[in-house]
């Protein structure tokens, strides 16, 4: 029973990783940038949800604001930080991204205070559903449902709509896509808008799950999401999804059976090292 419960808990957290990492892998696929500041957008989303929900009493409004603000923040990051330096070597945008992430963390601290913020009213936080001895809080359930809906929705969009096909074409071969009349800059904006909104939602859900939003909440997620996209095979959305869920489950078991030896945060990297030794290109990456 414990075995099943650990898998379910792991999958719930894996869903959060997925929402976070999909945006990162899309950015990497399109621009070859390791977008570390994505974790700053994640925390920004959480702050939007908690401040708006506490001020207005409406969680839905909080999430709506978070989606808009995170999405716009993603676009702003692309336009102001990355676009001017795209012609530089790959490490230059990465350094910029790390700097931006630190600035964002300190910015949250200055604007929202060094202490974290808890939700005034978070009814789903402790309330839980016990099915066959497995306790899942409503927030964990919401996390799974939201992740499935958004990721499936994105899959349909990318597979069936004109804009989605254009997007995929741009990722595969930007030059060819351009000569077929697809505007690559618009695809980039769309990419940052969607990926960042997703990260913002993930941040809001984690805020609800912990009932605590803090300036440094993006920290652990930032490097874990990087590990995930490397694990999944850089740029592969399907690989990223599989890697996210797998890492969630591996961590859940690790937290119980390996924590005396390794920190939970280290388990992910141990897993990454083992996988990369066997498959250097990642789970679904191409050589």
């Amino acid at each position, binding site marked *: 029973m414990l075995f099943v*419960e650990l898998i379910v808990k792991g999958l719930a957290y894996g869903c959060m990783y997925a929402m976070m990492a999909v945006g990162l892998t899309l950015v990497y696929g399109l621009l070859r940038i390791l977008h570390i500041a994505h974790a700053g957008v994640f925390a920004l989303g959480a702050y939007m949800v908690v401040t708006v929900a506490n001020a207005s009493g409406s969680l839905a409004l909080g999430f709506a604001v978070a989606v808009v603000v995170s999405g716009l923040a993603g676009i702003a990051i692309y336009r102001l930080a990355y676009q001017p330096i795209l012609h530089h070597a790959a490490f230059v945008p990465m350094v910029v991204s790390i700097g931006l992430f630190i600035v964002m963390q300190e910015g949250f601290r200055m604007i929202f205070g060094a202490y974290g913020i808890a939700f005034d009213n978070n009814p789903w936080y*402790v309330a839980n559903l016990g099915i066959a001895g497995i306790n899942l809080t409503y927030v964990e359930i919401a996390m799974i449902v939201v992740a499935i809906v958004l990721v499936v929705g994105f899959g349909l969009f990318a597979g069936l709509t004109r804009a989605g096909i254009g997007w995929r074409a741009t990722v595969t071969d930007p030059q060819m896509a351009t000569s077929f009349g697809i505007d690559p800059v618009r695809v980039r904006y769309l990419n940052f808008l969607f990926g960042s909104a997703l990260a913002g939602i993930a941040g809001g859900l984690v805020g609800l799950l912990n009932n605590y939003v803090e300036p440094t909440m993006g920290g652990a997620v930032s490097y874990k999401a990087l590990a995930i996209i490397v694990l999944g095979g850089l740029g592969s959305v399907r690989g990223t999804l599989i890697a996210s869920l797998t890492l969630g489950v591996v961590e859940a078991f690790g937290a*119980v059976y390996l924590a005396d030896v390794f920190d939970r945060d280290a388990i992910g990297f141990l897993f990454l090292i083992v996988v990369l030794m066997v498959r250097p290109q990642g789970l679904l990456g191409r050589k």
Partner: protein
Amino acid sequence: MQKKFIAAVAAAGLLFAGSASAQIKIGFHAPQSGPAAADGKSSTIGAEIARDWINEKGGVNGQKIELVVYDDQNKPDQSVPIANKLIGQDKVVAAISGSYSGPTRAAATVFQNAHIPYISAYGVHPDITKEGNWAFRGVQLGQPQGKGAAKFIADKYGKTSKVTMLTMNNDFGQSIADGFKEEAKALGLTVVKEYTFGLGERQFGPIVASAKADNADVIYAIGYYFVGGPLVAQVRAGGLKQPIVAAQAFDSMKLMEIAKDAAEGIYIVGGMDRGRTTPADFQPFLAEFKKRAGYDAEAVAANCYSSVMLMADAMKRAGSTDPAKVRDALAATKNFAMLTGPLGYFNSVGELYSPLEVTVVKDGKFVGVTVIDDQAILAPPK
């Protein structure tokens, strides 16, 4: 040109004004930015209240106290140059750390070599005071805290109780856990299983699921409030109904904000009873802190306040600000009223003896339950 001249005169005037009213300079470092900034902010406000109240009452030996405050970002590589700057440039006669163990331990060596008395207000790493005889600690070490918790559990729930331990795996958590396990063994308590987690952990679902199967009588949780809040909420959400006993660092009003109803009934060994009326400056301190900070005082703020007060008291008793005399006066401290409890004495390595207060969360407030004052258990290790 004229403007420049006036500015120069004004600057010179300021300089003279600065040196004319002689001040006692006490160095203070705490994290003002970075992840630990929240505690650093509380510590600094606590220390500043002490400074202001001392000065309002005429200062120390006729001189005002000046706190020279630096941001150590909770980094040892920052605290060492800060300590050097405090000694060489600011010429402080004493120093206080309002920071965690890492930076405090590094700075302690510098102050030791320069022969400047130094108090670690709440950094609990054992090595801080081991650098020599110039460093003192204004808070109990982890080990006696853990031992006190074992005694509390044995007294309250019986000596045959089975305990599940949830331990944060940094030096703070480990030292408390070590003390707990040592005393638990001596008392006959059974530790069913110990789960460990990192400082950054907020998700305890897997641990809770496994702890449920252990079916212990009591849960003993060690961690900071921002880890502890999500932890106890998830323990309750996971269906565990056992009593929870927690370590000192759960003591924060944020615990209730984060854990909400799940915080009710948690016992904190080493907590701070907010309803206490002794010492006389305790309630005024809580009120003043809330006024300045906008939120309720944490134990770290009280620790820093008391450390500044203790340093000033030692200077008064020494009748001098000569570092060697202040150090000797500090070492000779007896029955000093700290906000967190009376400081009985310092042992030979600068560790204090102080009783442990046990509080319980009742209607969202920390209420005093009992005081553990047992020399055999709480005597500071040398």
